[in-house]
């Protein structure tokens, strides 16, 4: 029976799961929309991974990452729980040894990671604003009636990209509408949007960072050829998009699990895809903070609680 390592990245927009063989090669990957429901997404993802592998496997280790990493860890029994920065950096270093800059744009966040000699030396994430992330591109593609998959290709056809204000998603949209009314061709507007987003990214997330090649561009938005070209133009250097650009977080998490090398994994088995997990929330009235406590239940057993500042509820669960 083959041994595998699982990496699970539960993000705001997508849930990605990948499987590594013991040599660290990616042998299966699944990219699913989270749709605000991480639990079914994780279950569905695991089911698909198992089906793709098509044979009985032993899980030697599980790593989780992404904003839902805590939930995913409790649910699946993870051996390693890591933040997205570390996971993405580890994955990028594996694919492009010697990488010095990682640009990552996901659904609702974007980050830049600076590495030197294989070690993260600096990073930044977007602040409260989600302008310039995948969700905004998605929304604009829908508004223009273009499938998101064709968005990048269309941008490449542009001859004179128009200038669009990229600071704020709301203003960018009014600017685009204005350019449309003036009669600019669609491809020029789409390409202009890509350039505006890149400008915004480099001015905000990338502010003050020393961007040196090799530059790796990953995250769901790296699928967009228009964004790839806008980045390489703005940076004046080649931008490398790894083969598995969309699941690099999960890949990194799996690599970290493999690196940790647990003797026996805490993985709770593929059967968990058939179990009944439920989350519930309540507002604690214990003090004036009124923390919103969330709990994860399997059947009638409470697996974990979080969200309380004092630990009254989270510590009450014996894990």
């Amino acid at each position: 029976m083959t041994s595998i390592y699982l990496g699970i990245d539960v993000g705001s927009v997508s849930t990605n799961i990948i499987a590594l063989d013991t040599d660290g090669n990616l042998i299966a990957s699944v990219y699913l929309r989270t749709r605000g429901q991480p639990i079914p997404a994780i279950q569905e993802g695991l089911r698909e991974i198992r089906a793709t592998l098509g044979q009985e496997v032993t899980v030697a280790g599980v790593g989780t990452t992404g904003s839902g990493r805590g939930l995913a860890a409790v649910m699946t029994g993870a051996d390693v729980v890591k933040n997205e920065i570390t996971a993405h950096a580890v994955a990028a270093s594996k694919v492009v040894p010697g990488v010095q800059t990682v640009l990552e744009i996901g659904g609702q966040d974007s980050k830049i990671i600076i590495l030197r000699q294989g070690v993260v030396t600096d990073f930044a994430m977007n602040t409260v604003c989600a302008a310039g992330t995948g969700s905004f591109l998605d929304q604009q593609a829908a508004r223009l009636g273009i499938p998101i998959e064709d968005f990048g290709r269309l941008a490449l056809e542009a001859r004179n990209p128009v200038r669009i204000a990229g600071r704020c998603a709301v203003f960018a949209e009014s600017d685009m509408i204005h350019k449309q009314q003036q009669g600019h061709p669609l491809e020029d507007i789409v390409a202009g949007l890509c350039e505006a987003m890149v400008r915004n990214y480099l001015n905000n997330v990338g502010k003050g960072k020393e961007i040196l090649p090799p530059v790796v561009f990953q995250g769901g938005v790296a699928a967009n050829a228009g964004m790839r070209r806008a980045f390489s133009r703005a940076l004046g250097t080649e931008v490398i998009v790894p083969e598995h650009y969309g699941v690099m977080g999960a890949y990194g998490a799996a690599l970290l699990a493999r690196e940790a090398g647990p003797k026996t994994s805490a993985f709770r088995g593929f059967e968990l895809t058939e179990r009944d997990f439920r989350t519930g929330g309540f507002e604690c009235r214990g003090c004036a903070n009124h923390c919103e406590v969330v709990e994860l239940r399997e059947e009638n057993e409470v697996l974990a609680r979080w969200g309380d500042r004092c630990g009254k509820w989270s510590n009450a669960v014996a894990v």
Partner: protein
Amino acid sequence: MVVKVKQWRLGVPRALFYYYYAPWWEAFFKALGAEVVVSPPTTREIMDLGISLAVAEACLPVKVFYGHAAWLAPRVEALFVPRLVSVEKKSFICPKLMGLPDMLRAAIKDCPLVIDATVDLSRRPEEGLRAAIRDTARAIGARGRQVERAGEIARARYWDWLARQQEQGREFSPGKKEGITPGGRPPLAVGLLGHNYLLHDHYLGMDIAGKVTRLGGRVILPENFAPELGEASCRRLPKRLYWTLGRKIMGAALHLMEQEEVAGLIHLTAFGCGPDSLVGDLAERYAHRRGKPFLLLTLDEHTGEAGVETRLEAFIDMLARRCPA
């Protein structure tokens, strides 16, 4: 003529300058026979109350201050909100904070008496302090020898408090082996910068110090070393920083980034803080030149704990991988 001093019930909001001068104030009023009521540590209710009352442009700590003052208003006879213009020669306090007493009176319904003695030490520090003490005491009907004595007691208490905080810094000197993390390495020294009213307000400031400690870091705070060290570092700047609190932060930043054993710096700032927006950037540039990792965390009323935790975790991870034990 001997005036019988009334037993005042004085409210002191647990916000802003409380975190700089609390021992001074409490000792002073108690020595004058007043009862001091301090509002409880910030909770969501207090913060929400402040946000609903304060002007939108105010920074979050000011909004929280309103919340504390409003909590106290129905429970006390007077609020102590000194008008801090300057606490040292040729340096000033942020204008938003100078205007606190006026803004409070306008915002809080049935606002009790506000004791708002002006503290201005910018020109003649000795005289300025004497005047501030005199005016504060007069507001509760105390004068003469008694006030002087209360001032001395308060000053002694205050210096004692400052010394104790520095002492705590020495207790964790780098050579010591205590507190080895589960990973088997001594904890990473992390300098935590920011206004006291953010760093020590666990709700508003999200208990960054606690989070860093739980992630295997050892926190060094600005008050854990002698302020002269920070002042000395600040003197090397091309221009004098005349905002007192900003200079404290900058001094701490410069001093800490010069220490070999400090693995990295975290600067906690409040959205809407004018001085912070400049000082934070300046500190970051100096840290960058020195090759010291620097993480800027900005708090506002919408800041989610998850985002802060991810950043802290990634930062500590980065420090750990940079300096293997």
